[in-house]
């Protein structure tokens, strides 16, 4: 497991990471979210022992990364941002190098590389130099390098960046499969990814953790959490609006999207009505008056709203 304790990093006067603490247990996938330059990569670089923290530290399976980096790194796999590799090597040579330098013997190298190649589906490109590979394959080579020694701890900086939707799906499936037996940290700015694979998410802004929780708990902080969404054809929008306005203690937001009209109905401020009760009221109204609608749903909340609310106006500083 990973224990991060009061991690802080200064670059000159600029505090890139400010007193970040968290822990990730085996079986958990922690998603690091945040705008560019928020300190995600810097935090990961410190946890993996690449950068030295200004203060604080990280324990990898109880081993302090600052005091005993080599033994901590032994049980860790790391995919740095951009999945760097040596362009002149082929994936086969590359995997052979990283496994042998980790001290595996010949037999272990063979079975470990075979497993990593299967998981990342690299069979077709094993003997092509890495710089001739497509972005997706290069990313998968980086991923294979991170998992080849079957580490307990896996840290990946934007593992799906630059992949097409099919490849993203594959990589996510691979992460989910490994998640059962590992403690994993991924960073991303793709919010759907957090829903898809993370058991916990953390939003970082300007070096600080602004919020942490399960993806659904984070989404519930959205202003639209618990809103009842009614969709109707735009020709019926006017009549639907008059019908909805007869309900008491509500706020309505209206949005036209192509041939559809979308109404978001929220309990009025100060009301203690639960989302389900509100939903029942709207449903009853729609059925009674037999209004023609296309859809009726309860909004769980949207992570991107929460993300934007918490990190607004933060686009300062370069990515570190």
């Amino acid at each position, binding site marked *: 497991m990973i224990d991060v304790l009061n991690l802080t990093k200064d670059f000159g006067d600029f505090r890139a990471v400010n007193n970040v603490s968290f822990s990730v247990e085996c079986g958990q996938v922690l998603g690091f979210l945040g705008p560019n330059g928020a300190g995600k990569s810097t935090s990961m670089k410190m946890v993996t022992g690449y950068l030295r923290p200004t203060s604080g530290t990280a324990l990898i399976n109880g081993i302090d990364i600052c005091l005993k980096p080599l033994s901590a790194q032994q049980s*860790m796999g790391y995919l740095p941002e951009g999945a*760097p590799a040596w362009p*002149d090597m082929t994936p086969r*040579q590359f995997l052979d190098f990283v496994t042998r330098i980790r001290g595996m013997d010949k037999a272990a190298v063979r079975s470990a590389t075979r497993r990593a190649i299967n998981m990342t589906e690299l069979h077709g490109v094993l003997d092509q130099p890495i710089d001739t590979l497509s972005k997706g394959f290069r990313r998968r080579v980086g991923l294979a390098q991170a998992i080849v020694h079957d580490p307990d701890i896996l840290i990946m900086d934007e593992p799906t960046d630059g992949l097409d939707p099919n490849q993203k799906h594959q990589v996510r499936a691979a992460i989910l499969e490994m998640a059962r037996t590992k403690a994993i940290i991924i960073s991303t700015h793709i919010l759907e990814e957090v829903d898809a694979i993370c058991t916990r998410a953390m939003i970082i802004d300007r070096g600080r953790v602004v919020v942490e929780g399960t993806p659904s708990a984070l989404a519930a902080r959205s202003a639209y959490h618990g809103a009842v969404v009614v969709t109707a054809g735009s020709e019926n929008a006017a009549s639907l609006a008059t019908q909805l306005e007869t309900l008491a203690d509500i706020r309505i937001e209206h949005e036209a999207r192509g041939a559809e009209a979308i109404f978001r109905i929220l309990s009025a401020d100060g009301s203690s009505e639960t989302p389900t009760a509100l939903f029942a009221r709207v449903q009853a109204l729609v059925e009674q008056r037999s209004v023609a609608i296309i859809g009726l749903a309860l909004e769980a909340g949207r992570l991107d709203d929460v993300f934007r609310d918490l990190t607004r106006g933060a686009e300062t500083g370069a990515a570190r």
Partner: protein
Amino acid sequence: MMRQVLLVTRREFNSYFATPLAFVFIFVFLLATGLSTFYLGGYFEAGQADLTSFFLFHPWLYLFFLPAISMRLWAEERRNGSIELLLTLPVPLSAVVLGKYFAALGFSALALSLTFPIWLTVNYLGNPDNGVILAGYLGSLMLAGGYLAIGSCVSACTRNQVIAFVVSVVVCFLFTISGAPLVIELFRGWAPAALVDTLAGFSFLTHFRAITGGVIDMRDLVFFASLTAVFLTATVIIVDMKRGDS
């Protein structure tokens, strides 16, 4: 640790041959040694069965050829981002620095060993003292080792290979000429004698000529070995300090 050094060396050495550049390099190097020996050195005119005129120009050839080998050692890793990968593998930094250095040294040793036809020639033409020639090759390799250690250190300071090359040439040049009469005279007028002697003592030329003369003096070997050690240690420190700057 030794195993890891060898793995790094092998990886790095192979990467020299990833492009035809290595062969071009070796070809040009052999051409330059040949030309300098026969035209500048007056190999035939001297009428002596030895390789003095061959080794004479090595410091000047190395001055430009070896920074071209060492410039990529760290600058390229940094530009490529692979330095982050390399430094998060459970490998001591000193093993990586040594491994890379040995790869560069191995490559220049290969280039140097391919000059063997000139040794065959001199043995065909006369009866040279092969002990002296062997000492010359040893001295040449130690000299190369010194230049490469400087180059490794300079390469660690930048992510730009061109800058690494130029700065390495300049630093190597200073170490080469520090014992030349011109430089010594420049200092003799005002500097204390101890400083002048120290300066002269740091000259690659002086130590190299002593070895190629056929006299293997421990002091000359120790000079190159310790200079190499100092610059490799500096490389470790610089790489470690510059972790954060990409």
